[in-house]
């Protein structure tokens, strides 16, 4: 028994000691060799990345990667490349990235200072904030009404953290995925479901009866979405950012935004002047 324990401890220690000594990441070199850029994205986060009715894996973020990032990376490595998609959820995405299983997280990941200690982020490609999804006619109209109420959140999301720290009177219920949280809201296990406004707008658009639901409240958190990369890989980050910058400069980004979030898009979510100014400020406009 004790021998096995010693052996296991030895494995853990060796693992811990060996890992940091490995070389700096060079994703471009890897892509040059394989001709493949592997992205970690979502299957159930419309309209960013999801599997549609025709069983195609599509979305706004996937379009950004294919139409803006891909050409830029191709230019950097000097050859044609393919995009390969893998599912990555909030708890698995950073491990997938650091273990080299994927090269770029292109989903709905908020750029936070804590995460910047583990990964690097691209330019912000989407800007939203936390709101609440409630049944129409609910007494909850925003963050000031949720004290003592049962509120569902998605585990791993930044807004759950804000609620826990700043609004401890809220009865927080954290679910690992969106469908379970929405089910809890629909059945009355909780009074509201909080997430990034755009996620809620997406849920509402997809619900069997969208008119039963309201997305309410001012943003009580800032959620700039970025694409995440392995830390310290400046060349790869430059290639990804150049692609996005080109999209902002040429207006291609706004065409894609209109396609997914315009009045006829998958989830109507108009770009406010403030958000547009924020996005353009990143590229010096």
């Amino acid at each position, binding site marked *: 028994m004790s021998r096995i324990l010693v052996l296991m401890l030895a494995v*853990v220690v060796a693992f*811990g000691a060996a*890992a*940091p000594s*490995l*070389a*700096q*990441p060079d994703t471009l070199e890897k892509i040059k060799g394989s001709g493949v850029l592997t992205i970690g994205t979502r299957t159930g986060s419309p309209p960013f990345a999801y599997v549609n009715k025709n069983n195609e894996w599509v979305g706004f973020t996937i379009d950004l990667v294919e139409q803006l990032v891909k050409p830029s990376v191709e230019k950097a490595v000097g050859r044609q490349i393919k995009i390969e998609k893998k599912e990555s959820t*909030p*708890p698995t995405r*950073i*491990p997938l990235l*650091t*273990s*080299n299983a994927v090269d770029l997280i292109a989903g709905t990941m908020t750029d936070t200072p*804590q*995460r910047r*200690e*583990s*990964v690097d982020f691209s330019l912000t490609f989407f800007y939203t904030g936390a709101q609440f999804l409630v049944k129409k006619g609910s007494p909850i109209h925003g963050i000031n009404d949720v004290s003592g109420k*049962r509120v*569902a959140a998605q*585990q*791993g*999301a930044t807004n*759950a*953290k804000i609620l826990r720290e700043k609004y401890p009177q809220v*009865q927080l*219920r*954290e*679910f*690992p995925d969106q469908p*379970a949280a929405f*089910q*809890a809201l629909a*059945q*009355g*296990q*909780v009074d509201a479901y909080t997430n990034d406004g755009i996620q809620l707008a997406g849920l509402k658009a997809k619900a069997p009866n969208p008119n039963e639901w309201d997305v309410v409240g001012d943003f009580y958190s800032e959620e700039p979405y970025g694409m995440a990369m*392995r*830390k*310290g890989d400046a060349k790869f980050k430059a290639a990804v950012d150049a692609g996005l910058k080109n999209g902002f400069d040429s207006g291609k980004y706004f065409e894609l935004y209109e396609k997914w979030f315009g009045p006829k898009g998958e989830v109507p979510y108009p770009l406010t002047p403030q958000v547009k100014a924020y996005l353009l400020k990143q590229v010096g406009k």
Partner: protein
Amino acid sequence: MRYTFNWSVLWSGQSGHWLLQGLLTTLELSALAWLLAVALGILSGALRTVPFTPLRLAAISYVEFFRNVPLLVWMFFWYFGVPPLLPRPAQDWLFDHGAEFWAAVVALGVYHGARMSEVIRSGIQSIPRTQFEASVAMGLTTFQAYRLIILPVALRLIVPPGTNESLNLLKNSSVALTISVAELTFQTRQIETYTAKAIEALTAGTLIYLVLCLSIATIMARVERHYAIPGLISRTRTT
């Protein structure tokens, strides 16, 4: 692979507090579910061997129905499926008072009760039939024969597979995070959320489960030695 380890995330900030809370919730959940599972297991395990067909059929239906549906489905069933059957005020009261925890206790207890039942049945059936016949010949009723003779012997025989099943129950309690119970695995994910250090958090969780299970296994090995019945299983000295 390039990953900078930072083990201090496990004791800096609130991590230690969360792990402890998660551990307590896991223990509480598992202990309550275990009591339910053992009670249901003994009852249905015994009923499967009684000489009365309707009771046997009832026990068989329970076991086959509950052990052959995934635990995850049972979690959702008890949390999402059962409360709507109650009146609205009762539902609200439940949801304000930890409905998810009790749903998890019932889901885990009923599911493992069905599995425990088979363990207990195997114990009962390993006892020679003549013992039951002898007890009845002594003037005991069937119920008395089970309570005084059959079950006490069977329970002493099934300590090893019973331990196995109990450890499974403890580890399966992690499925409760799907219905928002903040148990140990939930808390390791929480640490990951706050610190973005997944491997450290998962390692801490793994070690805690390992230590818990090893402690239980060690205690049960002692129980097994102490209660071994000479002539039946005392021949096999366990180490």
